[in-house]
């Protein structure tokens, strides 16, 4: 039964217009970024011939970007024969984990670095299915605190200031 459903899904996928296929979308993204970066190389400063050792600073990255574009086109052409096998649809928990990263950036930047690690650990563990309070506390407070103190004392690391870090340092 599952096999029949899989075959049906694959058949549906093959019948999609080319611009909906993963190989096309990924290739277009790579080529677009490469063109954007190629455009960025135009703004690199150039050196006068007397200081120019071999090639200009922009030449090497330009060559690389052209190579990436060329190889991406080959990859796309090859995909016309064999469409990429991409795993199932991404689950909701993946997007929640990704959202946690964004939250981490904001909390670390605005409030506190340690707090950001704690919140991310707590939320990731919770969204991944951990509901026991004791384990959530262990993961979000005890373990990050051990790591934090270890890095601070053994490696002499100074973490960026924040509401909790300042209390610790003072």
């Amino acid at each position, binding site marked *: 039964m599952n096999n029949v459903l899989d075959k049906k899904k694959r058949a549906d996928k093959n019948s999609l217009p080319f611009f909906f296929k*993963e190989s096309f979308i990924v290739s277009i993204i*790579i080529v677009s970024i490469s063109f954007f*970066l190629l455009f*960025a*190389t135009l703004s*690199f*400063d150039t*050196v006068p011939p007397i*200081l*120019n*050792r*071999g*090639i200009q*600073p*922009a030449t*090497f*990255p330009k060559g*690389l*970007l052209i190579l*990436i574009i060329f*190889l*991406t086109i*080959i*990859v796309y052409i*090859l995909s016309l024969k064999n469409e*990429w*096998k991409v*795993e199932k649809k*991404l*689950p909701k*928990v*993946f997007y*929640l*984990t*990704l959202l946690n*990263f964004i939250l*981490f*950036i904001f909390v*670390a*930047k605005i409030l506190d*670095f340690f707090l950001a*690690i704690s919140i*991310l*650990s*707590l939320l*990731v*563990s919770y969204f*991944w*299915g*951990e509901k026991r309070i004791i384990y959530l506390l*262990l*993961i*979000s407070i005890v*373990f990050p605190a051990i*790591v*934090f103190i270890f*890095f601070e004392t053994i*490696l002499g*690391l100074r973490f*960026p200031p924040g509401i909790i870090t300042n209390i610790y340092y003072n």
Partner: protein
Amino acid sequence: MENISLMIAPLFSAKLMLVLFFGTLFGLILGVLPGLGPTTGGALILPFTMTLDPLSAIILLTSIYCAGTYGGAITAILINTPGTPAAAATCLDGYPLAQKGEAGRALGMATVSSAAGGIFSVVVLVFFAPLLAQLAYEFGQPEYFALAIFGLTMLASIGDGSPVKNLIAGAFGILISTIGKDFMTSIDRFTFGVNELSEGIGFIPVVVGLFAISELLTQSTLLDQIYKRIALKAVKLPSLEDYKLTWKTILRSSGIGSFIGVLPAEGGTVASLIGYSEAKRWSKNPKEFGKGSIEGIAGAEAANNAATGGAMVPTLALGIPGSATTAVILTGLIIHGVRPGPDLFREQPEFLYGIFGAMLMANILFFIFGFFGAKIFARITLIPNKLLWPMIFALSVCGTYSLNQSIIDIWIMLFFGVVGFFMRRYGFSVVPVIIGLILGELVEGTLRQSLVIFDGNWLLFFTRPIALTFFILAFIALSFPLLRRKK
């Protein structure tokens, strides 16, 4: 004789033995945990090595490499999930044999063949690395450029992914290395006005992002996966019958693994796949393969551990990483102020032979740990992902921050984590990015210096015999996947 005494020197240092002990133990734990492994673990441990002297730091990393490569077999045999990519071929026969109630026998064979392969490869390393280093004295900038190109083209044949996708990933890695001030003219490239990018992008944020963070995201998609673990009573040493059946396979795979390891960029994964298929080809019972063949386990495990010593040959002699983990070790050498290459062999033989000796010891130690402790290590797989990965995240963030004490490094790590996840999802390996990043400066630097020597005439590259040989090898490396596909 003098070299042998240098090799056994770590045995007489309590500190080095302690480092070796913990490195082996930690490597085994990393190898057992699916998704981690010696590369990610090495990258995570790298900041901690700053508290150690260079020899202790590299011994720690190399022992993690040796033990981590073996550790993957425990998970492969007991839960049919390779702890490391290099143990993928071990699953093919290890798990079916364990299902037949012979998990102890399967693990015993994996332990013996891994240790044998590892020890064989250290012997290769001891003899071959100095020879290669001597040859490297003849190398000028054009030769190093051609060698780096050869190393990069070898990326085409790593793993079972698309060769063209691997090359794109490699080129992407080199592109990352161009971010920051151009080292010859100090002109900013791809910094987009961000001052922190002027110094370039560090290796650690990229490697932790591409391996640890992208794996965290991958694990978030696998939460519904249930591992069926096979109970293990005790590890059994192989019987005389098993030895008779496998000694040739172990020897052959050790040779294959060491050779594959020496090739730039190729590592244990390719070695184990070739070791396994050759074991099948030469076996008297090829039909047993895939159903629990003891030769299959021996072939894969001897080869992937033999690749560890092999991969250290170009890393130490030429500064070209032989695998993803040796790229981490190479970074460890560089941040500790040790420049790999022929001069290292002449100026610091005690350092080099200390590493060789430590690798030999690590292989013996993981044999002992594996034999007596596999049952305990297998229990580590019971740590649920919902607890394990948040802990790895905390370690990743603090470790990445610690090297430069820069918050930008953490953003870079997260960025590459997301990039790495999507790369893997769409069939692009992340290993070539790491190799490309580490070779990027060498490729560009030697190219530009060669062009100065040649007065801008590119064709003169082909007038240098060693450079020409490397270009021919690069061409063969590029053609090989095409030929394999046609077959």
